[in-house]
């Protein structure tokens, strides 16, 4: 039988000065998941390997690890497929990223719990239960809005590969904001503003870099990135002012008044005169490199047929009121370029 190498991150803070990697050679068995491979290594070669697991069916969220650099549930992916995906004979198994490892693949969950507490991840009813003794009821579209967000199993895959968290551990992170959204957008919940205030503290919500790692990683189609964006939309609707909201407003105004963004006037409009003054060294540098379009300081030019744009934007505001946009249900099946299907693949 074909063999492969399982290269496992090892670290025991009571014994080791620093982490190291240990490699186990195993057969590529039919249908073998990465979790099953970890078990095989533990049972047959080295009982000292530590890892978390429980359901083995991608339901409990305990076994998230990084495989060749990307987080996923060890029980959800097969060894054979991973070897093919990375075109390799070695799978490197590490604890999820951004999180302090406790021992081998087991990581410290406390910091996530502390973050979750800030957004009160439980239902706080808006009103008393219905008098007829039945449950709180909800319009189907209102439910649709939180349907995917409700599926989160707190597995940490998204937190692991989040670029904003990599830069700053104080970011609440996709899992936590997504969980907040699940209640913020719940028509039955009564703590919308408190939760929005919690995620908007220091504009934390807007530290998200839109790298799309969270949505790409999530094994349950929760779409944390999309939930972050929906939270931002709700915050704007609720009248919260933030750098991101101002930024969006500038883009909208520029499309409405000329079509393209006026990058030259952006800093002043974003941060005011004083803020723009802080950007002077940057501006001067850009000027001397020939990257500054002087005409833009006086408004610049409009795109052709710009009259269409105004008409469309005005009308969109009106039509929008009657539209219920459905969420995308599958964010993992790769986009199919329809030219390829036309050519027969």
């Amino acid at each position: 039988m074909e063999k492969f190498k399982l290269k496992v991150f090892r670290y025991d803070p009571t014994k080791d000065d620093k982490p190291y990697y240990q490699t186990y050679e195993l057969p590529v068995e039919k249908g073998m998941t990465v979790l099953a491979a970890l078990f095989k290594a533990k049972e047959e070669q080295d009982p000292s390997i530590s890892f978390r697991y429980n359901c083995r069916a991608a339901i409990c969220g305990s076994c998230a690890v990084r495989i060749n650099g990307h987080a996923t549930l060890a029980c959800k992916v097969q060894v054979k497929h991973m070897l093919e995906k990375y075109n390799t004979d070695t799978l490197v198994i590490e604890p999820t990223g951004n999180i302090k490892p406790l021992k081998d693949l087991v990581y410290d969950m406390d910091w996530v719990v502390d973050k979750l507490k800030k957004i009160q991840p439980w239902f706080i009813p808006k009103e008393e239960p219905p008098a007829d003794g039945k449950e709180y009821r909800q319009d189907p579209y209102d439910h649709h809005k939180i349907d995917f967000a409700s599926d989160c199993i707190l597995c940490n895959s998204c937190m692991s590969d989040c670029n904003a968290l990599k830069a700053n551990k104080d970011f609440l992170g996709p899992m936590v904001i997504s969980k907040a959204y699940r209640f913020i957008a719940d028509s039955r919940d009564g703590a919308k503003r408190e939760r929005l205030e919690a995620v908007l503290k220091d504009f934390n919500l807007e530290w998200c870099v839109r790298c799309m790692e969270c949505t790409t990683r999530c094994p349950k189609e929760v779409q944390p990135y999309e939930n972050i964006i929906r939270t931002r939309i709700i915050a704007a609707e609720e009248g919260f002012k933030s750098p991101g909201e101002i930024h969006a407003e500038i883009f909208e105004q520029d499309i409405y008044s000329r079509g393209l963004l006026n990058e030259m006037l952006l800093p002043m409009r974003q941060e005011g005169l004083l803020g723009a003054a802080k950007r002077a060294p940057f501006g001067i540098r850009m000027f001397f490199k020939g990257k500054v379009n002087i005409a833009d300081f006086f408004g610049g030019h409009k795109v052709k047929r710009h009259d269409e744009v105004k008409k469309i934007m005005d009308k969109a505001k009106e039509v929008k009121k009657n539209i219920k946009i459905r969420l995308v249900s599958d964010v993992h099946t790769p986009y199919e370029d329809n030219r390829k299907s036309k050519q027969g693949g």
Partner: protein
Amino acid sequence: MALKYAFYTGCSAKGVAPELYDSTKLVAEKLGMELIELEAATCCGAGAVQEKDEFLSLTINARNLALAEELGLDMLTICNTCTLMLREAKFKLDNDPELKAAVNEVLKEAGLEYKGTIEVTHFLWEVIDAVGLDKIKSMVVRPLREFNIAPFYGCHIIRPPYLTGYEDPDNPSSIERLIEALGGNPVDHDARLACCGFHSFWSAEDKVTLKLTAMDTQAAKKQQADFMVTPCPLCHTQLDAMQPEAEEKIGVNIGMPVLHLPQMIGLAIGLKPKELGLHKHVISTKAIVEKVA
């Protein structure tokens, strides 16, 4: 077959990255790609309008797509975020007839209609698939053999899969294959698939953005890259124009030049550094220019 595209420039190539616009036009012409510029196209919303008013962003991009449909040409972009925003609009409209009808009710106001007949694609993908690496190889007159080149994909050309789909987001190889076709040496580095931080600049410049910019450029430097290359002008602005701020932030000199994808191709197929706008970079490209001379 002649390669002809509706050319969507985006704001950056018309604003802070004029060298991207110029080098794209020059290289496309040499590679036999005819670009019909969509001069009536607007900004794609860049993710900013999208996080305030989703329906508005969809209608704006439905108009952009309809402009390419008028020409009957697929839309070629040169910015990862533009690609993603236009693909997002196309995907949502093509998969939701009610939404498409509502958007068309809006477009009718300007005598336009979105049909869903054209594709949105990126310069990188077309160079590889439509022009072809064999043809590129045959056009190389100045192989980049002494250069160690660090690919920086930029998020929005690989993630999320339902809107990109060109290659595996966890293990892409298009830029490496292109570098090899140009005779260069692709170097593996920790930030190959990382984020430049651009999109949180105004909210988290110090807390997030500049830290990522520093990590990315340092990762390339650690592997002795001569320069980084990116298919996205937003990554370029962040990694090149904001690199001095990132250096200041961490108190370390980095000095990592960053090239736009068409600039790298241009150097290998015999275009001059000056016409490709290499002098318009913030981080000096002098060492590269001297080597290719």
